[in-house]
């Protein structure tokens, strides 16, 4: 397939269609709405299901129903809408049916704004509704990667009977860049041996997230954990850039990682031995990789478009082996590469945070940037 100029939201929607998506249920919310609109145009023509629900709550429960039939199904939303979906996400996890969710993050909390943000990291990576489960979270940094990971998301969801979230921010959803779409796949009904479809010539099946017997609930929680252990063993993904003899490590995901890459490239040209680690799976998190880098490098810098939500996971993985600094822009503000570059330069010649939390020292520096 040839490369074409594609908008992020449209590229993800078309990638899902080409991955054999059978049904989409959603609700309009900026900056994600182009996904819904693209599906509304394409799915009926292909004889597949598109339905605009009355709310995100209804949309996720429609997804839940369709997922119980074994159909390849997804929804998409943006931060406040995803908050509304938390109920259904938990039920889907408890019922162990596969589902893909695309969260195109915007500024928050509350209504916030419609500008790009990474403020849903905790809601998605450490949250995702009540109860004891973990979703797979994929964080692409460009449109090609968003296409590839969307296709991958369905395979992972179905392989592990789990929820997979493709987590991007509004800028990736809205920007256009050249990318290549996959070949079209037809809808393929897999008829897995757990799906409800009418008990024709077989024993009836019941799908539920209710386990009133506490021993059964414990067994279910353990089964989810065992599956998660398998995911941790097999599915951790990240990308490294300029790691050759790197003494300083920048860590950033999604758009923040991409901006950080520009800064790292310039810093390398200046002769600063700095590399970039870009986690692609935020869950499972590349903890071991960070631990290993923390044992080799002089200092780390975490860059995010939030107040340091992934920072806490990096700190946990680095286990105090080296100073970890943080730089973030918030509320819909996207950092410039130059801001990250001056943070990288600072790593090499200024005293680093020895006492206290890197978030506090960053706040002091941010005051200077903003004034």
């Amino acid at each position, binding site marked *: 397939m040839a490369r074409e100029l594609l908008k992020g939201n449209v590229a993800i929607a078309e990638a899902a269609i080409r991955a054999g998506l059978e049904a989409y249920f959603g609700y309009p919310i900026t900056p994600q709405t182009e996904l819904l609109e693209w599906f509304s145009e394409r799915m009926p023509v292909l004889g597949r299901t598109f339905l605009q629900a009355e709310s995100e709550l209804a949309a996720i429960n429609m997804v839940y129903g*369709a997922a119980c039939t074994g159909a390849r199904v997804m929804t998409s939303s943006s931060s406040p809408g995803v908050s509304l979906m938390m109920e259904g996400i938990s039920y889907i996890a408890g019922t162990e049916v596969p589902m893909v969710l695309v969260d195109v993050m915007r500024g928050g909390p509350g209504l916030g704004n419609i500008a790009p943000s990474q403020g849903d990291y905790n809601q998605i990576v450490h949250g995702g509704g009540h109860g004891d489960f973990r979703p797979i979270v994929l964080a692409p940094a460009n449109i090609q990667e968003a296409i590839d990971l969307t296709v991958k998301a369905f395979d992972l969801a179905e392989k592990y009977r789990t929820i997979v979230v493709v987590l991007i921010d509004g800028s990736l959803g809205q920007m256009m860049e050249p990318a290549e779409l996959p070949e079209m796949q037809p809808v393929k009904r897999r008829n897995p041996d757990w799906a409800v479809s009418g008990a024709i010539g077989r024993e009836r099946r019941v799908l539920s997230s209710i386990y009133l017997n506490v021993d059964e609930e414990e067994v279910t929680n353990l089964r989810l954990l065992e599956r998660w252990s398998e995911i941790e063993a097999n599915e951790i993904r990240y990308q490294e850039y300029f790691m050759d003899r790197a003494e300083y490590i920048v860590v950033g995901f999604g758009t923040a990682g991409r901006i950080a890459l520009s800064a790292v490239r310039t810093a390398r040209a200046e002769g600063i031995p700095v590399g970039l680690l870009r986690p692609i799976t935020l869950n499972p998190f590349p903890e071991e990789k960070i631990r290993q880098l923390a044992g080799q490098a002089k200092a780390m810098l975490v860059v995010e478009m939030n107040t340091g939500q992934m920072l806490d996971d990096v700190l946990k993985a680095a286990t105090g082996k080296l100073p970890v600094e943080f730089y973030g822009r918030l509320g819909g503000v996207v950092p410039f590469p130059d801001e990250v570059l001056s943070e990288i330069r600072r790593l090499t010649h200024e005293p680093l945070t020895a006492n206290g939390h890197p978030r506090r020292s960053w706040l002091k520096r941010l005051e200077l940037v903003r004034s």
Partner: protein
Amino acid sequence: MILNTPVEKVYQRPEAFTEVTTHYCPGCTHGVSHRLVAEVLDEMNLIEKTIGVASVGCSVFAYNYFDCDFVEAAHGRAPAMATGIKRVLPDRVVFTYQGDGDLASIGMAEIVHAAARGENITVIFINNANYGMTGGQMAPTTLPGQKTTSSPYGRDVEQTGFPIRTAELLATLDGAGYVVRRSLHDPKNIRLAKKAIRLAFETQVRGLGFSMVELLSTCPTNWGMKPVEALDWLEDHMVPVYPLEDFKVSPTLKDLKF
């Protein structure tokens, strides 16, 4: 004396039931409404094609009693879940079984929009004027002045508003093909209820849109009455507030005879 004439079995457990004893309280009409649904599924030979959607409330374990595929929805979301199933499996029969707290309170948006879309599903709606499962709290269907565990002085309409007549409300929507209210308080009304349930499933298999049967039901345990007293209370107090009528009947259904 030996009877030489063969004995005809006139009453037996419907095929559509599993061999499980229900958990319902003595005198509760859930057992009656379950049986009516099961008899209709048998008569229409639908059980293999049917996917039930259980809700949250006393009927949370409905999936244990019907011998067909079943899913269990979140509180109030059964119509959304049923929509998801029906949209990808349009040739299957999908029904929800919901109580008044589930359907007319927390799930009001989902039921209204399912009806408005003409979602081709069947809804069995149990109206017993309180939240049964959690111990008899006030529901949107609780009568004015009715005492419940969360309206101990009687439902005060100045503070908590008025009962919702769900069937009348949904019948105003163009997507509704069949919306009626029946009662389970005596044999005559039970027979009428069964006919309505049959018509509701006929609505679905004929693709005539959304169908719902609201069933006035008793809750002797939470009402604090003996089963027979509860049946009388239903007839005397609920029927005047919730008239037993056809609110929407698709013209195609009017000619059907059983």
